[in-house]
Every structure is written in structure tokens, then in C-alpha cells.
């Protein structure tokens, strides 16, 4: 029985994707983690005043708060804290 060429192409493509997944998967994870760490650091810098670290620009970074609220919530959940660890900064 001769294999259907379309089916063969499909299978090859699938194999290619799997290989790609195998090689790239790890790197993707690493990149995503780096970005996440960078974003966490950014968020904590903006919120530094709330943690008792003087922030000369805290007044001006107020306008960033609405953009960071979701991320903050996601961060403390990811860090294994059910509720916001910051006094005076509650998101849930």
C-alpha cells in the first residue's frame, strides 16, 4: 500500500513541530521567566514606598498603579501568599 503523500507531509510536519518543541521548550521557559522576573522587579520598584523604602518619585508613579494592580495580585498568589503581604496595599 502506497502512503498518501498528503498524510506523509502532515506527519512530517507534526514530527518537525515536536522536535522544535523539544529543543525550544526549555529556552522559551527561561525567557518567559526572565521577563517575569524583570516585571516583578519593576512592580516592586514602583511600590517600594509601600514597603518602607523611600521612593523619590512615589507621587509620580501613582499614575502607574492602575496598570500594576493585576500584576501585583498575580505576584502574591504566585509567591504562595493568599492575600497581599503589604499593609495598606490590598488587592483581594
Amino acid at each position, binding site marked *: 500500500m502506497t502512503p498518501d503523500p498528503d498524510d506523509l507531509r502532515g506527519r512530517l510536519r507534526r514530527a518537525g513541530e515536536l522536535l522544535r518543541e523539544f529543543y525550544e521548550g526549555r529556552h522559551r*521557559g527561561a525567557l518567559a*521567566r526572565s521577563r517575569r522576573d524583570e516585571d516583578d522587579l519593576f512592580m516592586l520598584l514602583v511600590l517600594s514606598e509601600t514597603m518602607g523604602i523611600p521612593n523619590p518619585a512615589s507621587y509620580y508613579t*501613582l499614575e*502607574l498603579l*492602575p496598570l500594576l*494592580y493585576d500584576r501585583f495580585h*498575580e505576584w502574591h498568589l504566585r509567591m504562595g501568599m493568599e492575600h497581599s503581604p503589604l499593609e*495598606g496595599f490590598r*488587592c483581594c
Partner: protein
Amino acid sequence: MTPSSSFPGFLREPGGPRILFIGGKGGVGKTTTASALALELARSGRRCLLVSTDPAHSLGDVFGIRLGPRPKRLREGLLAMELDPDEEVGRYLDQVRENMQGLVRPAMYHEIERQLELSRQAPGAVEAATMDRISRLMAQATGPTSRGREWDVLVFDTAPTGHTLRLLALPEIMAAWTEGLLRRRDRSDAWGRALERLSGGRAGERAGEGDELSYIDEVGSERPSDDDRSHRIREVLLERRRSFTRARRLLLDPAMTAFIWVLIPEKLPILESEKAVHTLAEHRVPVVGMVVNRVLPAGELGAFLEARRAQEEAYLARIGESFAQIPRVHVPLLARDVEGVETLERIGRILMGDETTAPPPT
């Protein structure tokens, strides 16, 4: 002793600096000087907006009129206002609130609202709001007149020394901070782009197949709106940086801004002025003139005041040494408090050298 000179004439010329800061220790006569100068400039055809930035305003008192945070016309070519930091903070918070719509889940409004109300009382908020207003006024001063601006020159009657110097240092500190935050954004975005390249743009295709994307789990709450969010964060920071950089550039531009220092020939004001003018020089802020206020008038004064005069001469000599490069003008001690436009106009003439000697007080 060096005779008192006058202010550089270019202050009065149409092409002269558009932003004047009057600074000095508390109680040496900043408000009087600012008012007299503004009147004199208005008289010579440069329309002035006189702005008091000191939280303890006394500008209105000098003119015997009630002033507020909106410019009020005092006479032809002269507007005046007293900044109200609380109002500025309120306006800013309103703006943050407005921007919040559509970015935050309504369930969080209450929490953010609480946060904003706390910030109203935060240390530094008043200062930051004043700074913000000053830099916006400065930006306006350089813009085209056509946009409803009814003045050519901004004259700032600033708060006592410490505050003034702080105002000068702030743009730098703020710019450094924003810069740092922007760098963090750059790095985050760079990781994001690398991630996208690695996914080979096939993310969408595969998502269409209903696949669960492993890296989405990795990033946690990566949602489509995240790129938009990142973009807006960047915009906010860039706008801040732009405004700080602009204020700083204007402040250091001798063609645009001039700083005038006021002091009296007494020990403490001299010591403070030496420090302050040194700091201004370090920041390369152009100090174009100095007002030595309340110098004892010429003529017979009696034993008591003659004793004071002997001391004053030593102080004047020190002022001459310490500030040799800065044009100075002496304003005599007057018999009465400065009150009313007439006295101010006379001081204005003395400042510009139109009235060289101090006639005996009336």
C-alpha cells in the same frame, strides 16, 4: 566699598529671559523684590505673570488683594497667582482616577480609591505637586503666545532657600528614577521580543488549534492586554521624563531663565546665601543678579544706627567678596513697611538703576 550697580538691562528687553526665579532666605524681601520687578517689567512692556510658590503665601498681602490659584489681573500687563498645592494634588488624583477606567477591574476601584486618598497625605505630595505645576508653567512660558497666554514673563516668588534648591534638584532625581524604571521596561520588553521570535510567530496558529500553550503557564497571567499595558506604562514614564527633562533644560538655559538672589546684610542670611549660591553654581543655574536689601541709608543716623552701620559695612564687604561676579543692587532700608504699588514701583526703579541714590525716606 563697591557701589551698588543695577540689574542687567536685558531683563526688560523683549528678548530677555522669560522665566525669573526670585530666591532667598525667609524674610529678606523676596516677595517685595518679585513684585517690584514684575511691576517694572510690566511698565516697560513685558507682560508678567507673578507666581507665588511659597505655601505660606504673602504675595496677595503685598498688593493688599486676595489672590488664588488662578491668575488675577492686578493692572495692565500684570497678572498674579498663588499656587495651591492641595488643589494641584486633587487635580492630579482625579486624572489618575480617570485613567483607571478600563484598566482595572471595577472590584478594585474601591481599593485604589483608598490608596489614592492615602497618597493625598503622603509626605512629598505637596512638594511634588508644586514642582509639577511649576514645570508646566515653565513649559507654557516657552510656548507660542497665541494660545491664550496673556503674559510674556513668568516671575516666581519662591519659598525660602531649602525649598528652592530642592525644586532645582528634583528634576534631576526624578529623571534618574524614571530612567531606571524605563531601563527595566526595556529589559522586560527585550525578553518579550526574544520569546516571540522563539515562538516563531506560530503561537496564534497553535492557539487556534486549541492547544494549551506551555509558556503561557510559565508567564502566569500573560493576557493579550499585557502588551498594551506594557505600552501604556512606557508612555506614562516617557511623558514624565519628557516633562522633567524639559524643566531642567529650561532652568539651565541662560537665554530663557534668570535667577535673582535676595539677601540682607546680616550674618545668617549671608552664610545661607553663600551656601545656596554655591549650590546654584554647581547646578550651573544662571544667577544674574543679587538684591542686597535693607541697607542703611546714607546720611546722619544717630549713635545707635551708626554702630549698626559699622557692622553692616563689614557685612557688605563680605558680600562683595563672596559674590564678586554677580551684579548687585542695594535697596535702602525704608522708613516704613513696603505697602502699596507706589513704594513697589520705587523699588523697581532702584532695581533697574533708574533711581541711583536713595533719597531720604518721606
